[in-house]
């Protein structure tokens, strides 16, 4: 049993150690694995803000993950083909600059979350789960039937997007970018959760009636949290597209929503580093169990059942012996 701070430090240390070890023993795929953990972890941290702290069980976060991916993909596609996205009323051209792509992806993710949230947050419980799923599936089918950007086949990004002064082709450099952004997202989340807004959001989760009776409009609080959550997940999506140099509708599919949700629950709902632990566990299982049997997801499912039944605080909760919040 260790304190949560110590566990979080260990997780980050592990995440840094794995790719370094990979380079030493000349196994570069370990760098890619660690990058995947950082990116999926970030998507999970985004979902955790809505699902964990806000109690908003969104089963449609693939929408924001995929939207971020498509923003990166489409901008790069236009830049590489030297054709503008629009030439009227103003000229909008594509770009391969990460520093432009990221804020755009986050902005688009947040806007999408506001639109979807404004409708779905009027429902609760199972209806909320279903309506968020439905919206994500709508986007999924839209992407499939949109031939200009690859449709069902997806959209390749031939060259990895650029970051000023860095060689993003180098796997370790790209990993460091992802890790730095993950740490930034974690820091922002910790500040948000501990703020006045975080107090109101968590109060609304635990007792909506009481929170309303002190004069707080819980709908708007939740919508704001949903937008923040969508922005973070979209940023992860943009990085994921860059990692694979490929965007496809599968990023928008309900499998992706399920995976993000699984790694949040596996790691520990309302635990800041929970999704990172969950993503690590998920990628490890996928890699090593997946090498042994193609039915590795059966074992993942079994693990998830175990966590839900016996360790409600997930991996982080289990290791720190702090049960889940109400």
């Amino acid at each position: 049993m260790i304190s949560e701070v110590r566990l979080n430090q260990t997780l980050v240390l592990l995440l840094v150690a794995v790719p370094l070890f990979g380079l030493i023993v000349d196994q570069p795929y370990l760098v890619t694995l660690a990058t995947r953990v950082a990116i999926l972890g970030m998507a999970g941290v985004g979902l955790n803000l809505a699902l964990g702290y806000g109690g908003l069980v969104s089963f449609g976060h693939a929408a924001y993950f995929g939207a971020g991916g498509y923003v990166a993909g489409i901008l790069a596609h236009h830049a590489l083909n030297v054709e503008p996205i629009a030439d009227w009323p103003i000229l909008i051209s594509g770009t391969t600059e990460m520093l432009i792509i990221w804020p755009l992806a986050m902005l688009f993710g947040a806007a999408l979350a506001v639109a979807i949230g404004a409708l779905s947050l009027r429902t609760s419980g199972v209806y909320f789960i279903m309506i968020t799923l439905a919206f994500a599936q709508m986007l999924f089918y839209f992407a499939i039937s949109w031939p200009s950007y690859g449709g069902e086949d997806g959209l390749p990004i031939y060259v990895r997007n650029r970051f000023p002064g860095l060689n993003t082709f180098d796997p370790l450099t790209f990993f460091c970018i992802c890790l730095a952004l993950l740490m930034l997202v974690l820091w922002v989340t910790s500040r948000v959760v501990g703020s006045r807004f975080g107090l109101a959001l968590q109060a609304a989760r635990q007792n909506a009636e009481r929170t309303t009776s002190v004069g707080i409009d819980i709908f708007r609080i939740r919508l704001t949290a949903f937008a923040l959550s969508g922005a973070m997940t979209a940023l992860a999506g943009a990085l994921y597209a860059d990692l694979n140099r490929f965007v496809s509708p599968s990023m928008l599919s309900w499998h992706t929503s399920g995976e993000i949700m699984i790694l949040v629950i596996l790691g520990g709902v309302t635990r800041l580093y929970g999704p990172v632990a969950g993503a690590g566990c998920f990628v490890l299982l996928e890699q090593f169990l997946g090498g042994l049997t193609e039915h590795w997801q059966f074992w993942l499912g079994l693990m998830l059942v175990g966590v839900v039944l016996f360790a409600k605080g997930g991996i982080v909760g289990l290791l720190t012996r702090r049960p889940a919040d109400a």
Partner: protein
Amino acid sequence: MRDATGYRKSFTPDAARRTNGGSDAACNAILEVDQLTKRFGAVVANECVSFDLAVDEIHALIGPNGAGKSTLVRQITGELRHDAGTIRFRGRDISHLGAADRARLGLARSFQVSSLIAGFSVLQNVMLAILGRTGGHYRVFGRAMTDRSLLEPAVACLERVGLADRRSLPASDLSHGERRKLEIAVALALEPEAFVLDEPMAGMGPEGTRDMTDFFFGLRKAAPILLIEHDMDVVFKLADRVSVLVGGRIIASGPAAEIRQDSKVRAAYLGDDTG
């Protein structure tokens, strides 16, 4: 007659006439309920209920179980929409406002069954109320738990109800009586223009009830109280005026002493209940 803010204690003559007939409190009413009606399908929960709450009074609303008291409270606080009639607060029609907006206007309520945030500490429960009153709940940076503009008034409220030394306990660890006190601390933290206290003595022992009765007597200096209460001793000790709700209608309303003598009320309610 309205000032720039649209409300505050100025009234149209029409509004004044509609309030409780002839009572000298009428022109000072802060909360006016007029001809309020609520139906659930064929069941009439409240029918043409009218009463008002004057500044610096305690107005008790009594009635047997199922008389429609809770439904009435929920319509006043905005959790439930009424079918007909109007609710005016601080001279302004609040019928169309939601519960959060009514709370921000200064209408504080306590819940019949303690409705606290169980996973929050005692202090956090009160801080949330301060946050609701002072706003700024869209501020996403800055630590709330070390924010002195939230902490200090919250601690002050806890001191007033005698819970300051329990501040770091989770609300779920409090005894029943302490939870009731925390409810009051939360209501105080809202610095309301009027309190709506829904059976604040429910489940309290005789001693706790006596303490709270004294406390409420002092509370009226802060703001007028609409008191929904079952305990007749408490009601007649505290209330300036009493309205009796039976079968969804107000059958009598007036000064406490008058209501105690009212034969209709005795037959419908007091006789059965106080024995």
